[in-house]
């Protein structure tokens, strides 16, 4: 299994001299397994670069898994060149949207309409397929298995686990560990606390022992105080999850758009100094970085 980061930035693409090293593109990760299908997690602006890379391998079959449909995870898709080339097959997977009751195909088709983009979905030359997934529904792609679990974000977000040949990786998408909306003196506090514990335990059990965990670490714990409820995790919450789930390697991603390369490394160095002896190994996700399992 080969994992490669094409976009590691959160919220909005952030190019410029301050972000050259870790990259300014928004979320996109590719996972190569038996070579028949290109597995892609999310279609942020990084997918444009992946698309250029795939032009050397045409025709391609892609299985694109969307964690959620916020812009920074889908707005690279109209710029993913393989969708304009006949002979390619792109199958897009994602959750059902319960508020406006739309499936993944309807939502993504909506960003290919006249007032957003010059080419309509119907005009794409690749064979496009859309599959709406249920939680924990496993998609089998040859010998590879991909399964989603609901995380916690202001929209439904699937974290995806990819398993192949005894190796496994999990990507959270955007995730803020849920917090209790009640205070201890409230009638519902205890019940809510139990529901949160159940949800957290379900996630821990689901990702238990994976080789690679790629986790939303948008904020530091100090920054988080004013960002509660925005739907993102912290470096600390990622490490807590990684340790509880006994994962082998944790990659911090969804870097905050204002964070420079120096800022990112300063935070990382502090982590290594204080937590460097943990069983879990910590790494920074970086555009172009490849993990060979």
């Amino acid at each position, binding site marked *: 299994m080969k994992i490669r980061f094409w976009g590691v930035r959160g919220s909005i693409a952030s190019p410029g001299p301050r972000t050259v090293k870790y990259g300014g593109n928004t979320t996109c990760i590719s996972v190569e397994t038996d070579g028949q299908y290109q597995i892609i997690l999310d279609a942020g602006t990084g997918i444009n670069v992946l698309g250029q890379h795939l032009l050397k391998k045409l025709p391609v079959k892609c299985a694109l898994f969307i964690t959620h449909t916020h812009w920074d995870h889908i707005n690279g898709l109209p710029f993913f060149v393989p969708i304009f080339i006949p002979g390619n097959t792109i199958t897009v997977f994602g959750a059902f949207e*319960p508020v406006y009751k739309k499936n993944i195909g309807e939502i993504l088709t909506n960003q290919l309409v006249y007032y957003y983009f010059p080419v309509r979905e119907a005009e794409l030359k690749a064979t496009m397929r859309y599959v709406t997934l249920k939680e924990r529904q496993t998609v089998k792609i040859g010998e590879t298995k991909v399964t989603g679990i*609901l995380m916690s974000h202001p*929209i*439904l977000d699937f974290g995806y686990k990819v398993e192949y040949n005894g190796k496994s990786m999990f990507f959270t998408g955007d995730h803020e560990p*849920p917090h209790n*909306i009640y205070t201890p003196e409230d009638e519902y506090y205890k*019940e809510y606390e139990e529901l949160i514990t159940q*949800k957290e335990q379900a996630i821990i059990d689901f990702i238990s022992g994976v080789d690679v965990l790629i986790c939303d670490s948008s904020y530091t714990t100090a920054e988080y105080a004013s960002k509660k*409820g925005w739907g993102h995790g912290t470096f600390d919450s990622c490490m807590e999850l990684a340790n509880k789930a006994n994962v082998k390697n944790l990659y911090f991603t969804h870097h905050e758009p204002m964070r420079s390369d120096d800022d990112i490394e300063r935070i990382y160095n502090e982590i290594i100094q204080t937590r460097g002896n943990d069983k879990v190994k910590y790494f920074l996700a970086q555009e172009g970085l490849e993990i060979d399992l």
Partner: protein
Amino acid sequence: MTEDKKKEIIKLVEKMPAFPKSVQRVLEMTSDINCSPRELVAVIEHDPVLVMKILKTVNSAYFGLASKITSINHAVVYLGLNAVKNIALTTVTIGMLPRSNSAGFDTNGFLLHCILAATISKLVAKKQRVPHEEIFDYFLTGLLHDIGKVVFLRFMPEKFKKALELAKDGKQPLHKIERKIIGIDHAQMGYFISARWNLPKTLGEAIRHHHDIIKTDSKKPLHTDYVYIANQLCKKLQAGYSGNFFFQDMPNEMKERFGMGLDEIWAGLEDLDNEIEKSKNFSIM
């Protein structure tokens, strides 16, 4: 009522608006990005229409949950607060149930009846030492037991008006009159919706039987007993409006299951006045 007519109603219920008070509160609260999640959940969970719609969504086949979700708090943890908030918002923007209507039905008074039935069911369940994680199920059954009446009010106001008029003298229970005039009573209608919307079975069964006398070998109180008791206590308290003025005492079988009668249960409820006042806050404009 024919099956086709029932199916037609189910489609219409999808677009059923919520109660005026909660529409006003949800719109007000959600215009502030920093609104308190706890207060928003409290407003949502006191409106039968909002609660039904959220439970319908979260229990729909799209999520394929192994076990049903029966509380708004659980829906918030599962779907996220923002999804629940936006489901409520899409409902409140449809409009609101009219405060006055051709059936002569007091909408605000009815909401108070639903909330009181919910609160009393919950209080009785607490008194009976029902495990705390199940307490909300009793609140929910009380809140939704009369949802069928909202359907009648909305989609067959003329017939419902006739039924309400005949029930005014309190000589016959409203549900029996509904059966004659509409061809189905509100308990059956509520059950039908809850089954079609894939809501928890215990909830549907309790709605279905909330006027019935159930004979069983069980020595323990049944789920539906609580809403039966709450419904009758609302009449004794003369608070809220249900359109039904026929008092039904607890049948002997039910008294045996509780080991006491209605007055004793009433006397055992602590803090009832305070709870009634709180209920009014969620229903009266």
